[in-house]
């Protein structure tokens, strides 16, 4: 019954963009129908998710696909857990799109965007309910390809085309690794079904290989350092609500894959937990450090996704460590932190991207240093961004704090029991928190506070109500999870139990291990205290109005917007501290003479993996294969000929030559 709701949601999502295709480009009904379809799909699907989390998923359902026997889908708590963000963000995105990407302005690509949005959501939902390699891969490829078309929505821009091609290459490396993974799984277990196997079935070497392949394939998708290289470009050049779903939800499919595979593989060695934890530490720290160096608000948010994936991986690492050493408490805390951070990140990162979309919509630029003072013109979007910023920094009383608290507690337990990686993890997580605060002070303070730095920013107007509604929904979710974490405890318990199924049937509840009531009550007390103080202060000062004045600038009477501290200057000290890793390019201008000519200074931070390793390597490879061009004639017949020759050669190697030789010798 609940699985049927999910299947209905998938179907609705998949067809949501089709009516728009048959309507004229000038019609607004296509986008309205799509938004309604996605909203209904989200509501139906979320009802199914609630059932799934209660453990009422029902029997698995086969769908006929002759090429691979039967593709099987089923709904368990883990699937339901990951379905929730897919459906929520997938459902409110088209609503946001009504205001942000209206058909009457974006006639050329609006229909394409909505078609692939629906397919993306359907693909991801299919992927998480897949119980068979084929249905998993089907969902995976639908997701990967529709994400490609979404990144390339504005394919007339060179930047978008470049980002989408890099993304396509990366995602196919990931898919190819998945082929290897499933082939190995099939040969080791004799089945394409994704079900836990007994420890005797898999030899240790096979298990290691499966883990490594899964780590690479899903790590690329999740944007784990150093496999994140495709991520900043792709997320920055897509339309903002697409960035929201790419960052908030699509990355989580990598995490889902990893979590699901680790549930399938029996008895993880302790080294796996340490490896995942170490990768989490690296991704978390470098992600936030790179984010601080960015000037483009969307690129900055994209790097923050790398950071948050790092935090999620730290939780997963703790859970793995607990599983291999038999500490069930670590598993509950680590898995609770990992899973809750998946939800939290999908909420606050979508919120931030959607609020950034409102900024782009209003001020027509993504450069933080060209914004300023937006909180006056667009107070709702500014408030939404503030909620997202406080949440992503992991500060109480919002949701980011709750999941980070679980991970901290898990790390503390593991560190006190002598796990070396966990000892590194505690101070690194603290540093990540402080760096995230620095980064979001930079963005929020520069973009939304102060005075507008450009006329465009000064004239920015608040986004329409269709764009504000999604912000409100997401911000409310952030606040609810932060103030009443007990509400999500059953979902976390069900999913953790599902992950541990067959290993430790009686896993304890997260409620007994983490102070859910305590942080909820203290957070509520903080909010109530602040609200009371604000009311009191307002009442007291209602009588005596505050005197307006200009900002104090050492007695200077006419401060100008250009005298404000810029985001670049704000980040300069931290970029300097991490200069050996970031290697920022700084161009200092020469100023000489009594009346120097106007000069400009530049500074930017390249991506270490893409710009400093992959691209130069690719260029060198391309140069050294220059001789290969003589085979490139540009004639289709030529290429067909090559294919024929290749096939003949392959067939030749398949000939039973050895048997023939033996037979000949025996004669």
């Amino acid at each position, binding site marked *: 019954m609940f699985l049927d709701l999910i299947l209905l949601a998938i179907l609705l999502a998949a067809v949501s963009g089709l009516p728009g295709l048959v309507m004229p480009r000038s019609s607004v009904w296509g986008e309205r129908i799509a938004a309604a379809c996605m909203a209904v799909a989200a509501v139906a699907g979320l009802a199914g998710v609630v059932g799934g989390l209660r453990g009422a998923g029902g029997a698995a359902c086969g769908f006929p696909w002759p090429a691979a026997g039967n593709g099987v889908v089923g709904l368990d708590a883990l699937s339901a857990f990951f379905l929730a963000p897919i459906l929520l963000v997938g459902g409110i995105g088209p609503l946001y799109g009504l205001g942000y990407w209206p058909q009457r302005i974006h006639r050329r690509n609006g229909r394409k965007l909505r078609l692939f949005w629906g397919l993306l959501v359907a693909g991801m939902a299919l992927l998480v309910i897949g119980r068979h390699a084929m249905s998993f891969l089907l969902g995976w490829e639908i997701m990967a390809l529709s994400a490609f078309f979404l990144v390339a929505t504005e394919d007339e821009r060179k930047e978008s085309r470049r980002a989408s091609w890099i993304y396509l290459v990366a995602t196919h490396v990931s898919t190819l690794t998945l082929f290897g993974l499933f082939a190995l799984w099939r040969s080791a277990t004799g089945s394409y079904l994704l079900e836990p196997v007994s420890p005797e079935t898999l030899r240790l070497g096979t298990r290691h290989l499966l883990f490594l392949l899964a780590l690479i394939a899903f790590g690329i998708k999740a944007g784990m350092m150093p496999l994140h290289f495709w991520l900043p470009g792709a997320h920055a050049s897509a339309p903002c609500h697409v960035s929201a779903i790419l960052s908030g939800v699509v990355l989580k499919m990598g995490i889902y894959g990893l979590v699901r595979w680790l549930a399938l593989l029996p008895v993880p060695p302790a080294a796996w937990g340490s490896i995942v934890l170490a990768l989490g530490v690296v991704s978390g720290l470098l992600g936030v450090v790179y984010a601080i160096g960015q000037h483009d608000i969307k690129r900055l948010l994209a790097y923050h996704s790398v950071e948050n994936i790092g935090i999620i991986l730290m939780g997963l690492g703790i859970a793995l460590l607990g599983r291999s050493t038999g500490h069930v408490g670590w598993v509950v805390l680590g898995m609770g932190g990992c899973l809750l951070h998946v939800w939290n990140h999908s909420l606050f990162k979508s919120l931030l991207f959607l609020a950034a979309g409102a900024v782009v919509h209003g001020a027509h630029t993504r450069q933080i240093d060209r914004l*300023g*003072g937006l909180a006056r013109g667009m107070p709702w979007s500014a408030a939404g961004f503030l909620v997202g910023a*406080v949440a992503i*920094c*992991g*500060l*109480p009383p919002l949701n980011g*704090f709750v999941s*980070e*608290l679980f991970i*901290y*507690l898990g790390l*503390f337990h593991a560190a*006190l029991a*002598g796990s070396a990686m966990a*000892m590194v993890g*505690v*101070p690194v997580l603290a*540093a990540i*928190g*402080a760096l995230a*605060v620095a980064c979001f*002070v930079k963005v*929020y*303070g520069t973009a939304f*506070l*102060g*005075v507008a730095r450009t006329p465009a920013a000064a004239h920015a107007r608040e986004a329409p109500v269709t764009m504000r509604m999604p912000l409100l929904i997401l911000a409310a979710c952030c606040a609810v999870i932060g103030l009443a974490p007990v509400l999500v405890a059953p979902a976390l318990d069900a999913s953790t139990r599902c992950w541990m199924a067959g290993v430790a049937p009686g896993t304890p509840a997260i409620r007994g291990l*983490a*102070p859910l009531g305590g942080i909820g009550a*203290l957070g509520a*007390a*903080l909010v109530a205290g*602040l609200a009371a*103080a*604000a009311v009191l202060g307002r009442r*007291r*000062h209602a009588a*005596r109005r*505050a*005197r*307006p*004045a*200009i*900002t*104090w*600038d*050492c007695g200077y009477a006419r*401060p100008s917007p250009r*005298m*404000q*501290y*810029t985001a670049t*200057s*704000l*980040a*300069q*000290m*931290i970029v300097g*501290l991490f200069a050996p890793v970031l290697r920022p390019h700084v161009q200092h201008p020469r100023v000489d003479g009594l009346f120097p000519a106007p000069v400009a200074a530049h500074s930017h931070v390249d991506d270490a993996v893409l710009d400093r390793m992959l691209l130069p390597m690719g260029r060198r490879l391309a140069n050294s294969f220059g001789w290969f061009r003589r085979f490139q004639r540009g004639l289709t017949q030529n290429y067909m000929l090559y294919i024929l020759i290749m096939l003949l050669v392959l067939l030749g190697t398949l000939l039973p030559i050895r048997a023939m030789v033996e037979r000949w010798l025996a004669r």
Partner: protein
Amino acid sequence: MIHLIIHLAVLLILPPLLLGVIVKTKAWFAGRVGAPLLQPYYDIFKLMRRSLVLSTTTTWIFRAAPLVTVSTALLAGLLIPIGGGGAPLTFAGDLIFFAYLFGLARFFTASAALDTGSAFEGMGAAREVTFACLSEPALFFALLVLAKVSGSLSLTGMLLGTTGAGAAHATAPLVLISIGLFIVLLAETCRIPVDDPTTHLELTMIHEAMVLDHSGPLFGLILYGAAVKLLVLGTVLLRVVAPFTFGRAWLDWPLYLVEILGLAAVIGVVESIMARLQMRHVPYLLVGALLFCGFGFILLIR
């Protein structure tokens, strides 16, 4: 109940006196009479009665920041044991809540600084958020040591549990993290050698630069919040350095008062005999704190 009332009274009333003691100590070193011990109280009361001057560039964030500073500091004060007994509020993992409350205050203070659109306040905000990136890991290393020594994950358990029988081998780590925590305390409460609260040159300030535009009651709240933060962090340090209690409330409270005022005097001495570090040297000092705390932890688990 009585303990709770005294706890609240000390937390609410005592903090400005610490500022008075520091100023008096500095005056004594300089051979001056100095301001009265209670001068910070007079200042705060006077500021609270004055009217506001608000920069035309500011939004509600600017007015909210002082409230956030004070309320987070007071809430943090409810999580730590003052005097002999435990904290009014305690649960496993409250140490993380404690640390992140200051993060929340930092977020709002620095944002409020940027709200004014002044380059000086931006500079102060940049310094504040940068230095916190170094002092936070040091603080968490120290918390790890305390958790390991006491075997507890709540602040009350950690800060009152370092005198047990099993803690004898932990003396060296505790000494190391005391040094680290003292540096973190000086940095977080904006004292010399990291920051000079009495400087008159905007370019060299950290915390003071961030609050240049706050006036009247808002500035009074900021002063008071800073004093509460000094009391709270100072109490944490005291419980590590001198974890002794008599087990009798009527002796423990006076002992605590002597200790915390003594700590303020020590800070005054440090401020008198040291110069403020060059801004580019501050990170070295904070990395030093991180090293002290980190080596303390390594000593403990060897």
